[in-house]
């Protein structure tokens, strides 16, 4: 089972590596970051969703395994959100001249980072496992329902300050050129598979740790 997935991943990565030499968007070599930056951001959001869903299941079934799944997903989400923020600001530095630009996308990924931070702050403030699990689950649900509102306001508020996103938008909306799609979508899929793989590992590790503690 795992092996097949592993092999797929390897081949995807090698594909990326070979297509590297092909010319990317108008911004030059740096735009290759796009293939890693956007999927990272996607994974951080996916992780948030997975975390919240497992939180809901925990609330229904009160099985601590679901809390382990939930917090593991959040850990990975935090990592990828961080990676996305960093890669994004690197891209920003080159294309727009500064690491931070109050660009809508930069702001939204930063807010996601804040939500993850808040989530772990909450968890560390509670000692009892079941309390921790329940409170975390409720908070992640609250944070999740905030997301539609955030999505609404961020473009409204920040768009007016920077036309900077238009470059990205052009490339995303005006259909990616075939060459770019060839690399981008496999990257997206690869990152997603990577997420689920790392997630299952993290869950197993955490379960072991919990077993040891219990014993």
């Amino acid at each position, binding site marked *: 089972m795992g092996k097949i997935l592993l092999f797929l991943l390897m081949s995807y990565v090698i594909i990326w590596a070979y297509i590297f030499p092909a010319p990317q968007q108008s911004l030059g070599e740096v735009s290759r970051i796009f293939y890693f930056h956007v999927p990272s951001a996607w994974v951080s959001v996916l992780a948030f969703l997975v975390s919240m869903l497992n939180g809901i299941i925990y*609330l229904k079934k009160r099985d601590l395994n679901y809390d382990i799944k939930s917090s593991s997903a959040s850990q990975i989400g935090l990592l990828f959100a961080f990676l996305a923020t960093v890669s994004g600001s690197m891209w920003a530095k080159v294309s727009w001249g500064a690491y931070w630009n109050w660009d809508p996308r930069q702001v939204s990924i930063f*807010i996601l980072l*804040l*939500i993850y*931070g*808040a989530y772990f*702050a*909450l968890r560390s*403030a*509670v*000692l009892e496992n*079941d*309390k921790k699990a*329940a*409170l975390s689950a*409720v*908070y992640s*649900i*609250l*944070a999740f*329902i*905030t997301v539609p*509102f*955030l999505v*609404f*306001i961020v473009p*409204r*508020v920040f768009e007016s300050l920077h036309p900077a996103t238009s470059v990205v938008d052009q490339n995303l909306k005006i259909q990616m050129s075939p060459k770019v799609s060839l690399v981008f979508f496999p990257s997206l899929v690869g990152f997603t598979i990577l997420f689920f793989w790392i997630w299952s590992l993290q869950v197993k590790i955490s379960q072991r740790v919990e077993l040891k503690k219990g014993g």
Partner: protein
Amino acid sequence: MPSKFSNWVTKITAVFKKEIKSEFRTRYALNSILMFAVVTLTTLSFTVGQFALTNPVKSALLWVILFFSAMSGLAQVFIKEEERRTASILKLSALPNVIFLGKFFFNLVLLFMLEIVTIPLFLILLSLQVESWLLLLVILLLGSLGLTSATTIIGAIVSKTNVKGTLLTVLSFPILLPLLVISIQGTKLALDGSHLAGAGSEIIFLLSYTIVMLTASILFFETVWME
């Protein structure tokens, strides 16, 4: 059934009255909120008041003050129950929904009292020209409702932890961000003199935010309360 509903309302009022009474004895939450607001306002007016601030900046300052004042005072409703060990008795005496709404309205009143003091001071100290009073009041009302609804449920969550203080701010900020941003925009529009219609989208946004937050709060409060 009308009698059931009025029964329900009576119970919520009972919780609400209890909150007011116990707060009135010590005035702890009210004091901390007012002190915070006054101190912040004074600091601002001394340092920044002399400069010509633009309307967007003034709007932002107002809501920053409101946000942090709320942080300093609105979590008390639940924390004091835990600290004074009255939580268990309270759990037995009423349904979670009733308790939540009673405390919610108490927080709302607390916030309103804060605003009654703060807004006029704010207008004077920062020499604000309000072109559209009605809109300002509407935004304040809706924004306060939203602020209170999010803060109350998060306050309940925080009351169950060991850390309390700063945790409320850390947890509330991401959740309240949309509310704050739109309230600030709405306030700015009010200062500029827009009609109610001109701020239509802000009003609808604030209204939906409040409704969503309240619904979610009521849905999940029992879970949090029973931990």
